[in-house]
């Protein structure tokens, strides 16, 4: 989940904070302090997050494009200037474009808006933007909700009392509502000071940037790991009382499946699985994140030399071309696999399926998957040549069952031609001739298209008269028999018009042809 930091650099941010006995601070210093703390946290615990920094007043500017280089972001914080008034709408439109250009519309993003709570005046102020919300045309739509899934966190460099003197809080709440309720407003508890800003950003970190740690288990083989990006709770709106589903922190591997059998399944999200070594205090020593810096701690060197189940699993999954099926929670599954980034680099990844007992129709119900030893004979064959997957559905789809569709004349013409082509090759093609004939007969009866039966009967009668002298005598018999039967069926209401009835080849004395009929 990439992060966009939207920093208010309007003049109101330069307001002084009254602090007793210490040096003077402006609100923007508090904001920078909070963000700096956030970046520091991300640099150590959330290294893979892409973050960009946008400063805004009446205009907006992309200070730092999406990056994992938190030093650049820190530096940028100290170089922002002061500008004029707050104009949030254009800034929101701006970041909407930045995100879409970079990530498209399917990747969830977190937007952190840092402001002092004075939302501008006049045109372009948030108050004005929201008041004319209903009068907007399709082209000048308000940028919220963002076209991509998002969370909007508003960090107010102001305390609650201050905000409540105006309607600022209501307006900000409307903003969150506009984003489909996705987001939250944070305010400073108590007087404005470094400590309270820290605690506010601390809350944001706990909420949105705490790394997800879990234990991966395969029987007795276990490994501590971190998932990045962390899996977010999923809400299934078909539920009676939808409760966000979160994944277990103990993830059990239940078995393995070949990549060909799992066949590029649709997934909700995918995550890097990074093995971590936890020391006794529960802090991670080496979190497997990048940046091989010089001052690499000896702890992480040790961790690198300690065997990890994740690494073993990754190696074998890669070599065997398999995935491991993981139980994420009640009736919720995922898969672990090796993902190659380049020829040299590859990773253990986890993809989450849609919650439910049967996320993939071709595997059937997940709870019905069992060990191969339970099957009477190895479903994969002794030489690994077979597979029990994919499961076949009960009924075939129309394209797999040779349905009859005559809504276009070409469909009907093709079917008639097939009969005619086979009719000319009687008696060799007796079987296919009758198969096609019966298929046409059935469809004509179902559609109440009795005229067609008459027409085809006439056609077969004519074919009979056109038979060359060299033709096998059986051909004439079969043609007139078939024509006769079709005519009977075309009368409707008779016993010959029964749907299940099939026209059988005429039993003749020609021994050569009787062999064909078997």
């Amino acid at each position, binding site marked *: 989940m990439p992060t966009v930091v939207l920093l208010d650099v309007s003049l109101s941010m330069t307001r002084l904070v009254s602090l007793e006995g210490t040096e003077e601070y402006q609100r923007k210093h508090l904001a920078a302090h909070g963000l700096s703390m956030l970046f520091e946290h991300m640099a150590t615990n959330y290294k893979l997050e892409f973050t960009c920094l946008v400063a805004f007043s009446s205009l907006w500017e992309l200070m730092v494009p999406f990056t994992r280089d938190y030093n650049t972001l820190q530096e940028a914080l100290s170089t922002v200037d002061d500008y004029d008034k707050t104009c949030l709408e254009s800034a929101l439109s701006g970041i909407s474009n930045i995100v879409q250009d970079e*990530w*498209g519309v*399917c990747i969830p993003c977190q937007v952190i808006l840092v402001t002092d709570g004075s939302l501008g005046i006049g045109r372009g102020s948030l108050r004005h933007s929201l008041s004319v919300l209903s009068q907007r045309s399709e082209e000048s739509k308000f940028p919220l909700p963002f076209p991509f899934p998002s969370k909007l966190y508003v960090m107010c460099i102001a305390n609650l009392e201050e905000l409540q003197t105006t309607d600022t809080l209501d307006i900000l709440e409307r903003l969150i509502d506009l984003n489909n309720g996705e987001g939250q407003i944070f305010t400073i508890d108590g007087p404005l000071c470094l400590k309270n800003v820290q605690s506010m950003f601390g809350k944001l970190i706990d909420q949105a940037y705490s790394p997800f740690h879990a234990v991966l288990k395969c*029987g*007795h083989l276990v*490994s501590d790991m971190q998932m990045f990006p962390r899996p977010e709770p999923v809400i299934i*709106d*078909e539920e009676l009382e939808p409760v966000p589903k979160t994944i277990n922190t103990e993830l059990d591997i239940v*078995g393995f*499946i*070949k*990549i060909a059998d799992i*066949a*590029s399944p*649709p997934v909700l999200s995918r995550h*890097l699985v990074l093995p971590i070594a936890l020391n006794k205090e529960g802090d991670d020593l080496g*979190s*497997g994140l*990048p940046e091989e810096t010089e001052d690499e701690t000896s702890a992480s*060197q040790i*961790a*690198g030399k300690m*065997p*990890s189940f*994740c*690494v*073993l699993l990754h190696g*074998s999954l890669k070599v*065997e071309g398999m995935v491991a099926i993981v139980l994420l929670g009640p*009736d919720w599954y995922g898969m672990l696999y090796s993902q190659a*980034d380049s020829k040299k680099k590859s990773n253990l990844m986890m993809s989450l399926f849609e919650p*439910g007992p*049967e996320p993939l*129709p*071709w595997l059937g*119900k997940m709870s*019905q*998957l*069992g*060990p*191969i*030893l*339970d*099957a009477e004979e190895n479903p*994969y064959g002794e030489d690994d040549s077979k597979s029990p997957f*994919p499961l076949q559905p009960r009924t075939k789809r*129309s*394209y*797999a069952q040779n349905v009859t*569709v005559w809504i276009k004349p070409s*469909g009907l*013409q093709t079917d008639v031609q097939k009969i*005619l082509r086979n009719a000319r090759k009687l008696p060799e093609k007796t079987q296919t001739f009758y198969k096609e004939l019966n298929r046409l007969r059935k*469809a004509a009866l*179902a559609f*109440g298209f*009795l*005229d067609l039966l008459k027409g085809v009967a006439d056609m077969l009668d004519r074919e009979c008269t056109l038979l060359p002298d060299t033709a096998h005598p059986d051909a004439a018999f079969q043609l007139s028999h078939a024509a006769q039967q079709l005519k009977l069926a075309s009368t409707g*209401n008779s016993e010959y018009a029964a*749907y299940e009835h099939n026209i059988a080849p005429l039993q003749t004395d020609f021994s050569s042809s009787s062999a064909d009929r078997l």
Partner: protein
Amino acid sequence: MKLFSEAHKTVFVVDHCPYMAESCRQTVEFDMFTKNRAPGIIPLAPISKSLWTCAVESAMEYCRIMYDIFPARKLPATLSSMMSISGDQRLLTVAPKQLMGATRVNFIVSDSRAHTLNSWGQEDQNLQELMAALAAVGPPNTRMDPECCSVLHGLVEAVEVLCKCTDYQHEARTTLMENADRVSNRGRIICITNAKSDSHVRMLEDCVQETIHEHNKLAASSDNLMQIQHCELVLIHTYTAGEDSLVSDRPRKDISLALTSEVHSVRAGRQLPAKLTTLVQQHFDLASTTITNIPMKPTFSVSEQEEQHANTSANYDVELLHQKDAHTELLRSEGKNMTPITCDHFKGKKVDPHLCNSNRDGAVKDTVTLKWCTPRTNNVELHYCTGAYRISPVDVNSRPSSCLTNFLLNGRSVLLEQPRKSGSKVISHMLCSHGGEIFLHVLSSVRSILEDPPSISEGCGGRVTDYRITDFGEFMRENRLTPVAERGFMMDASMELPLERAKSQLERHTRYWPMIISQTTIFNMQAVVPLASLIVKESLTDDDVLNCQKTIYNLVDMERKNDHLPISTVGTRGKGSKRDEQYRIMWNELETLVRAHLNNSEKHQRVLECLLACRSKPPEEEERKKSRRKREDKEDKSEKVVKDYEPEKSWQDSERLKGTLEREKEELVEAEIIKDSPDSPEPLNKKPRVSIGEIQPLEKVKGPVSLLTMWTNRINTANSRKHQEFAGRLSSVNNKAELYQHLKEENGIDTHENGKGSRQ
């Protein structure tokens, strides 16, 4: 909260009155073959379909597309398993975002009375059943009195049918119990008829409205019936070509809270099926994708009106329908940096289908064009796929369609490319089949937030180079999953779910599983393979035990011959450890493995007994203590403390089996090896105890002799006096009896006895 929507239940009411037998007056040439091939012969006169035929085949086309994309599936079991998750988290539809399996169609034809052709039941939900039922009804009977025929009968019946629960609704109601009223009942009635006038249409609407009102009253006082919350009536007036429509189109409007109605006036013939194809897309939120540039060998056939040249390769287009969600990413990013995505030859041609003859079938719609990318290899790849949706070809039997679908059904897959005016090629979708069903997979085509991730070799455990990758690969193959027939496990409710069994198999197989080569000796030895693969089983057969024992004897043999062990020198200090030290480590490890499975079955214990009996004696007391400590640590770690131990009974068996094997061996292990082994049970020089109730805790064996043992020994000694002593024991020297003395005489080889056999 999204409950059952209108799309869950569809009732088709098709007018079967005599006037429907009228010709639609659009003729079809069917004698094409003759026309082209045999000059001089006058082709048969073209025929035309009746209004009835047009109506029925259009309705069937609607159902075909619907069943392709939302195949009806038997659901209760799935549903209930979802609903039983926990109190509040019950799901009310099966697959999220999809109507998977939950679409139901009821087909009614109406003349002098209503004929219901099928039920809501899943077994009735397929084309074949409907076709057979329609054939039984046959075309309208022109001799019927038109006065007593009306489509009204069918509409009334349709309302009645809508009040009946489907299997899904029934399941939801019974599961929700007190909240049963939260299960909604909505439906759609699609009525194809030939109306006389606008007021006739109004009369039909009023009648449906009234019937709903009445039946809701009935349903309110019934346990089985459900009130209709909402019904969508789609009235399709169809008339013969050349006539003017007596009924005007009318968009959807509310008749009452429970009923909305819309009227479509459509000419029979080609327009009617086109109309229903459009409707099915609206009703089920479908979208269209045209696969373009499909290379195909040209046909020689002349079925199409268009000219086709033999021996020229041509590219074809195939149009597919699927759920709209498959286009989410495309549609959202439309207007960003994408080129127009709607198909050129359809775009902007929003013309009234009645007037539009340039477009052959009157079908006017937006379709997304994606380009076929000829698959280069058959490599299986795991694509990052964000959605998979079933498809239905618009023109199912056309040659291009069937070429594409057959290609896919044969197991190939095709990547689809977004046509862009400039820039690199973007693969956005993939078509492939799974078990006879074709799916359109949506592939992620945007920048990944996981780009440039750290390699696994840079993280924890990344520096370790001797992982048992191949062995774990073998382990994974053994622990592959397979679908287990539901019947098998349903018979016994107490039986574990197959997936639980898979989990417990993984538990067993990993009880002792060192991850790196230098951590293990036994798994590097080919000789141990038979035992290692058998011991993890839940239960062993006698043959399995025999094989395990063979493995052990084989090891004993190796030790005797002082064979080299593939032991790792990593971790051992100084010079490589001595050979007997290596064997001690090997035996300890093997014992750990076997002990981890001790409680699986009684036969597993026999393997341990054999192992304990055979393993060699550590050289010094010091070593022994050390190794015991080590092993105890290991055991504690693996949490597989062996609790129960029943030595005597199995001892007998293993000894007997062993005896047979030993005959083949010329030299046998010395007796004191067993006696002094730190983990071996007490010297078994006592009578086998018959009592099963007597179970010796293992711990006891290691410690000083307990009172119980002293007592049992005493009793045993006393008992042994009460019967005649074995001949062997009587003639033994030092409690050792020489067996097979005749062999010695025959071979002239000095056979050493280990004395174990003589104890019995």
